[in-house]
């Protein structure tokens, strides 16, 4: 359940930015999470609700944008989509894949008042 630590890091970023912009409340947070990242979005939402209690971001809505996973397939010599680590190349079935995209965990923007 490392989502707790990730939620705490998230809150720290959100609160610092909100305070820096003289906000009194954060109403929404947009996150980008890669499909191959280390977090489970339901667990993160649950943990964030818990850590945000009593903060500027209490009750803020989390809008999670999932970014697709992508890998470089060595046999195919091209980029292919990858839904999970350990999956084979959807074109040739090889596991000789180098993940190139999909492990993002980013706070993109926040709505404040």
């Amino acid at each position, binding site marked *: *359940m*490392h*989502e*707790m*630590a*990730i939620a*705490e*890091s*998230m*809150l*720290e*970023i*959100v*609160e*610092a*930015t*909100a*305070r*820096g*912009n*003289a*906000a*009194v*409340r954060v*109403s*929404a947070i*947009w*996150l*980008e999470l890669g499909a191959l990242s*280390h*977090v489970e979005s339901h667990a993160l939402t*649950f*943990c964030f609700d*818990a*850590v945000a209690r*009593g*903060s*500027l971001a209490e009750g803020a*809505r989390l*809008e999670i944008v999932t970014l697709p996973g992508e890998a470089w397939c*060595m046999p195919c010599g091209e980029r292919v989509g990858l839904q*999970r*680590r*350990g999956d*084979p190349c959807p074109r040739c079935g090889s*596991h*000789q*894949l*180098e*993940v190139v995209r999909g492990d*993002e*965990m*980013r*706070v*993109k*923007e*926040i*709505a*404040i*008042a």
Partner: protein
Amino acid sequence: MCTTCGCGHGDTRIEGVAADRSGDVHRHADGTVHAHAHEGEHGHSHTHAGELDHSPDDGASRHGQGGGLWYRRHLHGGSGSEPAAGAMGDLGAAHAAGMSPTRVVTIERDILAKNDEQARINRQMFADRGLFVLNLVSSPGSGKTSLLVRTIAALEGRVPVAVIEGDQQTARDADRIRATGAPAIQINTGKGCHLDAETVGRAFASLPPVQGGLLFIENVGNLVCPAAFDLGEAHKVVILSVTEGEDKPLKYPDMFHAADLLLINKIDLEPHVEFDADAAIDYARRVRPGLPVICLSATTGEGLAAWIEWLLQGAAAARAARDGDIEALRRRISELESEVARHANAPTA
């Protein structure tokens, strides 16, 4: 604190002493009252009600979070990474008279940026000391501590060794390491499920100074959470024992993907268990193509030589890199000294 699993930090202890996290999350009821200092001045007395058009840069109020501030109340088209249609309600409400306007601030910051920055600092600190640093990760019970004890004995003092031990509770593992004569420090994460870079940095500072050798960081036994946290190590080494299922690399792919070496431990028990080592290696290489593997037994010492050789090579490379840096620095100092001497000896006009 997570109400489901109790996971989270705040209970971290290093050698039984509470670890201060002064940089931790501050909580405020409304953001208008806080006692701690911020970089840059900003007042909180204004409400911004109706002030939709003031300049984004009017605040010395920003903290350098990156990303400009702008008002997006008309800009959300609902496509791609744009907020979903549901966001329109809130943002539209910004126009209601007498209410604070809602505005959107771009951040674009990696959630783990703070941990990654501390990991970078740790990595530099380790490089300056010529240390080859390994982050040992596995399920509980794979034999990490027994392997370390056996490894330290097999190294026979050829290189200095120090150990940072991570567990939720007790100093048992650090005690076992110290019994070998190697310095060790125990981190108790309390409810935490993984080590982070900040805790490791502080634990390292509490260790007796160690140079030009090996530093092992034995992470909390957990095949999920430590995968996300860079501690500043040279490599994550994942340990899988034959008493576990050979399909663990497929079940826990993030950790096997993050690792640079797989140790298959307890191979002395292989005849007694249904563990298919070839399948385990195949599965591990599906998530991490080309992953090097060493099969060994911490109990009998079988296969240990390859592991020791790998460690000594890494330690020698880390030492050489540091010495190379020092040598380059010495050359530069000597160049500067001769330059100064030349100027000092130059005839004055």
